[in-house]
């Protein structure tokens, strides 16, 4: 989750109010409208998605220092997953409106935070495209070197950024 930690390091969040949540507390439900990003300061949050068969599949555990909901912050819309606290947590909420107000107020920290969010999405997109290219080569019978190279390159962080969202598609 080192890419996520980059967001947490921003002083932009230093004076943000922290919210304490116990085990089982929901942060949001899949399909619900969202406009907030959440930073997990302490504890753990489980992200799950429903498969096409309606089964709930755990896709990621966000630990202290991680973030979730960055897509909703930038493009409000239905949540793509549900999030529930699985270990007593401290959470910081960053609402789109608050970020926008601070951007308009020329807050350089808010601008750096926005760019870090965008960077995270661009990184995911590049990695997903790289993996698609590598899988294409594998499917064409050109060997598995490209997929192995992708796994070697992104082993530390790429799995959570790109592979976790893919899990609901996998047959069980």
């Amino acid at each position, binding site marked *: 989750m080192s890419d996520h930690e980059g967001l947490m390091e921003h002083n932009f969040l230093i004076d943000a109010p922290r919210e304490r949540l116990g085990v089982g507390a929901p942060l949001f439900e899949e399909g619900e409208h969202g406009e907030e990003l959440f930073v997990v300061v302490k504890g753990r949050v489980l992200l799950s998605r429903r498969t096409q068969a309606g089964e709930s599949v755990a896709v990621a555990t966000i630990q202290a220092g991680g973030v979730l909901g960055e897509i909703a912050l930038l493009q409000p819309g239905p949540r793509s997953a549900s999030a529930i606290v699985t270990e007593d947590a401290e959470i910081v909420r960053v609402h789109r409106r608050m970020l926008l107000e601070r*951007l308009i107020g020329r807050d350089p920290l808010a601008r750096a935070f926005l760019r870090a969010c*965008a960077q995270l999405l*661009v990184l995911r997109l590049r990695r*997903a495209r790289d993996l698609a290219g590598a*899988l294409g080569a*594998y499917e064409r019978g050109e060997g*598995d070197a490209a997929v192995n190279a992708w796994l070697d390159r992104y082993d530390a962080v790429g799995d959570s950024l790109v592979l976790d969202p*893919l899990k609901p598609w996998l047959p069980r």
Partner: protein
Amino acid sequence: MSQNLVAALARFRPFSELPLRAVADASRFVAVQRMDVGDTIFNAGEIADTLILVVSGELRLVAPSGRAVDTVRPGETLGVTGPMLPSRYTMSGICGDEGALILLSAEALSTLWEQIPPAAALLEMAMAASVVPELREATEALGARLTAPIESVRHPRLRRALAPRR
């Protein structure tokens, strides 16, 4: 400021996501560039820090090998996040059919921030958000690909990486 320019900008993402007032403010910071067949707009390896909107004509993307890989046509955009997250071009952009481009550089975006922060804030939020549909599409395409065609991931290391973690 030309109303034509504002109207032209408003047809392109990410400007199409902004209130017209913000488009008009941003229009003061863009540059319009004519291009003729064969003109090099950018070279592979150069810093990609400019949003390029193709108003008319065609821009061919050419790999370092000389192979034409793609064509950017009127109404299409290149390098949406370039001004906020500069990277490097992996291909060259060569004019294939004469026309006009609208450009917004990182420097211009920076000046917009200094002079009209609300417009810059909305534009940068829209630039960042423009990645989301592509990301969703890429994730869904990958997910669909992982199920049927390769029978639940034949590649052993990838299959292990995708296995649910406890």
